[in-house]
């Protein structure tokens, strides 16, 4: 296990490189979602095929999650973007990278691209959106609802989840409740600074949005395409918010195409001519 000290805290990082000394054609940085998520969601899904395709894959656990340190405070979106920036500086991965984010991880990835457009080769948002005025209260409400129900009577809530959603989901919920109890995450996230529409428009690299057809977030696809200069979206029918782990092959295929296209712009331009 690789722990990297960013100067602020220790983050758990995993890197998967192209096998057998094959040349690296691009670097991708994968950012996971909130509460129940960790870098494992990528390690066993997108990372192996990406590495085989010649991509140097960097994955890390957000603060408070997985094996990374869990400070009591510092969970705003900007704190998470600061962590990502410090980590990539520490790893010396400062050239343009392909950012991939699942759910809240996509909001972090997009925020990093907005802060450093020169460091973003592309952004792939899986069931995710940039931080807008509407985003912060919406996420705050979801966090409130989930955590209020868990905090009200955790044992009953976990028993209900176990009976209706299975043992694994119940255990994940217990972990989420613990994270919320031990940290200021549920207060910090809704209090996060957000981006203006001009700041969102300033992300000029190629952006891909991937959504589950049965997810409310799929409704964002047309807006995302209208606001960003270079954006395409894909809706995967029959899936909800967990489309990354449930349809990893499909999701990974779309992201890989974007990365390969964006990594070889000259070649594509020549081919088009």
């Amino acid at each position: 296990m690789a722990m990297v000290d960013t100067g602020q805290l220790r983050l758990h990082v995993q890197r998967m490189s192209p096998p057998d000394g094959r040349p690296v054609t691009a670097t991708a940085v994968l950012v996971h979602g909130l509460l129940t998520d960790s870098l494992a969601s990528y390690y066993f899904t997108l990372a192996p095929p990406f590495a085989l395709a010649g991509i140097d894959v960097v994955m890390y656990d957000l603060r408070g999650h997985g094996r990374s340190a869990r400070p009591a405070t510092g969970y705003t979106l900007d704190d998470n973007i600061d962590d990502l920036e410090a980590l990539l500086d520490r790893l010396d991965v400062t050239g343009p990278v392909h950012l991939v984010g699942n759910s809240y991880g996509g909001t972090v990835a997009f925020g990093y691209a907005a802060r450093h457009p020169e460091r973003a080769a592309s952004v792939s948002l899986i069931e995710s959106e940039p931080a807008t005025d509407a985003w912060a209260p919406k996420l705050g409400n979801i966090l409130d609802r989930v955590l209020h129900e868990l905090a009200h009577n955790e044992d009953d809530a976990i028993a209900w989840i176990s009976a209706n959603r299975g043992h694994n989901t119940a255990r994940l919920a217990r972990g989420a409740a613990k994270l919320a109890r031990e940290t200021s995450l549920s207060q910090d996230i809704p209090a996060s600074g957000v981006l203006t529409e001009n700041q969102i428009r300033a992300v000029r690299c190629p952006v891909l949005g991937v959504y589950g057809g049965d997810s409310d977030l799929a409704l964002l696809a047309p807006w995302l395409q209208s606001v960003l200069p270079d954006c395409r979206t894909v809706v995967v029918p029959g899936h909800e918010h967990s489309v990354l782990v449930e349809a990893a092959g499909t999701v990974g295929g779309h992201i890989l195409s974007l990365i390969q296209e964006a990594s070889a712009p000259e070649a594509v331009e020549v081919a088009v001519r």
Partner: protein
Amino acid sequence: MTPTTEDTVLADLTGMLTALLEDEYGVDDVEITMTTTFNRDLELESIDLVTLAGLLQEHYGTKVNFAEFLAGMEFDEIIELTVGRLVEYVVQSLKAAEAG
């Protein structure tokens, strides 16, 4: 060199899992057999499987690629994964590497 058999690989995996459970959860009295499931019986989380992938790589080198093995599975298959299925995969990978 000890020949690779299911028994030797099960012994290797038992050692890795025992160390992982003790390091992460302070648990030191778990019985591990071929039918033990990672999720339900050992209560391992997916991030623990990342740690296990690292331990497997340390022990067997690049001959055994746990991440690729799981990446080829459906989500439900991973939830139901047994130690025995991993043992079979490791034996198969090691034999393929010897033959190749």
